[in-house]
């Protein structure tokens, strides 16, 4: 039901042409669209009811993410409504409550400033938060901060004396410089430089030296939602390919009658269907037993990554010449799949977590 409603809305408000329009206009984001989504309760789907949300849980968030993946909607859902909200919920003080309320109302956007190398590795943080008076001064470089250019607030992970600490800072604070990047999926990504940016104790989310208590659940939630988005992406690319197989004729036959393509399409459908199970499982585990959800989440992200890659590669190849043209939409799926494959941990990263959980 949620899926049907979401699909109905997105087919009207944000079909694939919406992303193309943004890209052609040199934009990465449509603020009006996010306002509408917030009005429908999407920004607050994980926000507690007490602070203006609907608190529907991660399985439901996954349903929305999946539908967004189908039409490649560019919006701050993952970074703000999933990752930041999950982080803020771990804290639960009045300031976090107020932030959650603002998110639910669509009035505040967050970006997670974590990565410092080209591959996801949440422990490899060299950004320093030096003690300075009663507060801190942050210096370092953050790479590939998704939604980093448009965000009102940044969740910055920095090294303090005893570990990592998570800061919730206004993005326009002195000493923070943001440089937008031109990324292949046409979304908002920035590199960020912190040059002695000041933070008070009140800017710390959770406890000093204990970023992971807040961040780890947020990362898992983001990974699961991103996996759900990728599963929708795979389904969207596959639907387009399947339609083409039925329509396109070659040597007077619909190409979908060629057995080699049939078998490949059938195999791909199996992969999508099997990945869907992993996605559902991750959402359920996050809702029912979040402390033990790590393997389920990594399983979902690994499967979704592999499946989305296969779907877009087969999509381009089966479309032949037009598949490689920009005029055709398959390239958008391919580019987003590639970015989503890397973001928050690639196949190898997550498969390794699964393997370790399974004892090897």
């Amino acid at each position, binding site marked *: 039901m949620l899926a049907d409603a979401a699909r109905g809305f997105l087919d009207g408000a944000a079909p694939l042409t919406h992303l193309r329009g943004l890209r052609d206009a040199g934009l990465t984001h449509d603020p009006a669209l996010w306002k509408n989504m917030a009005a429908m309760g999407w920004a607050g789907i994980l926000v507690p009811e007490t602070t203006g949300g609907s608190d529907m849980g991660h399985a439901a968030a996954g349903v929305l993410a999946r539908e967004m993946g189908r039409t490649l909607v560019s919006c701050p859902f993952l970074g703000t409504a999933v990752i930041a909200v999950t982080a803020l919920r771990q804290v639960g003080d009045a300031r976090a409550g107020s932030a959650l309320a603002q998110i639910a109302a669509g009035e505040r956007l967050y970006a997670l400033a974590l990565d410092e190398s080209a591959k996801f590795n949440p422990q490899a943080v060299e950004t320093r938060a030096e003690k300075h008076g009663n507060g801190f001064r942050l210096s370092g470089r953050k790479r590939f901060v998704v939604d980093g250019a448009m965000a009102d607030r940044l969740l910055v992970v920095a090294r303090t004396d005893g570990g990592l600490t998570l800061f919730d800072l206004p993005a326009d604070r002195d000493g923070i410089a943001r440089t937008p990047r031109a990324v292949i999926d046409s979304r908002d990504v920035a590199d960020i430089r912190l040059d002695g940016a000041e933070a008070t104790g009140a800017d710390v989310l959770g406890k000093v030296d204990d970023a992971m208590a807040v961040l780890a659940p947020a990362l898992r939630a983001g990974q699961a939602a991103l996996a759900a988005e990728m599963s929708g992406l795979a389904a969207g690319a596959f639907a387009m390919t*399947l339609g083409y*197989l*039925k329509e396109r004729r070659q040597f007077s*036959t*619909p190409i*979908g*009658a060629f*057995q080699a393509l*049939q*078998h490949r*399409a*059938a*195999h791909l*459908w*199996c992969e999508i*269907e*099997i*990945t*869907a*199970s*992993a996605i*559902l*499982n991750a959402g359920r*585990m996050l809702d*029912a*037993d979040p402390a*033990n959800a790590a393997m*389920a989440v990594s*399983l979902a992200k*690994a*499967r979704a990554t*592999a499946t989305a890659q296969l779907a877009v590669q087969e999509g381009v190849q089966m479309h032949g010449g037009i598949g490689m043209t920009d005029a055709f939409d398959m390239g958008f799926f391919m580019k987003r799949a590639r970015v989503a494959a890397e973001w928050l941990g690639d196949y*190898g990263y997550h*498969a*390794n977590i*699964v*393997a370790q959980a*399974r*004892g*090897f």
Partner: protein
Amino acid sequence: MPHDDPSGFRAELRDWLAANCPEEMRDGASTEDSICWGGKNWEFSSDAQKIWLDRCAARGLTVPTWPEAYGGAGLERAREKIFHEEMARIGARYPLQSFGIWMLGPALLQFGTPEQKARYLPPIARGEVRWCQGYSEPGAGSDLAGLQTRCEDRGDHWLVNGQKIWTSYADRADWIFALVRTDRDAPKHKGISFVLMDMESEGVSTRPIRLISGASPFCETFFDDVRVPKDQVVGEVNRGWDVAKYLLTHEREMISAGGQVMGAGRALGAVLADSETGQSDPVLRADAMRAEVDGLAVGLTLERYKDRAEAGQGAGDASAMLKYAGTELNKRRLELVIAAGGTDALDWADGRAPTWLRTKGNSIEGGTSEVMLGIIAKRILGLPG
């Protein structure tokens, strides 16, 4: 991930298992050797195997989802899951496996008369009668409906003549359920019936087929003027294809699940962790990681489809996906098990080699992977031709 258990069923079951499952039956084994198939001539591998079968049968746990009236425990889906979880928790072997449980039972529950159910189901549940199936015929390959075995109405009995191939363990089975042609003039799907025959009937003979694995799980089975009582047709005469389709779905799920069960005893990872190069060879490790990821996801998919079945939606054509994915995955897994084992695994005396070779047949028997992909392409995806 344990399921909710509001009613205390889990605790009660756990106690029962602790008290009743013999220690020897707790090794998680699911190799061809460790299986109890039951039947009139079954030789139990140990006292423990017999005790375990009898105790489970008495409690309906050989067929936990069947109605209690027919020897089951009448478990609904949520409790069935708990049952499997608790069995896995202590590494308990399944007390009984059989084509009667997997295939004939579901078919009879769906299509059988009350008399047929009462007569045939309880002996299956108790492991007293072992069944085999007679579907394929020589030369027909994947064209199942092209079968030629004749079944003529001779007034007070049927007369069966013909030949089946790939009949699993027909040489050790007590009874056979088979598809036969009862109307030779009807279109090929319309003249088929589903018939039950005692393997001790005059005119039935079998010849085992040796596989590359060295084992002979299949036979050729011959019917030469076999007389069959009239009440041994399941479902309507000439409508046997309906039963067959229903069973094909079950067979696919069974073969698919078989792959899971085989692997379930021990995660692939544990096998690799033992291997001398599992950690240091990135090829072996990467392939094992992929197989483990895929195996878990296929397992979740089987669960998801079982949940759907509970909710009244059969897997239907999607069973082709379960069959395809499960058997192809299992081939990959056993390749890795052998690779991890190195030269130790290449000996006939080592159980891994025969098991590995046996998996090669899983993607052929019960409909090849190619047939499964064709079903998916045409019936699910609606591709032409």
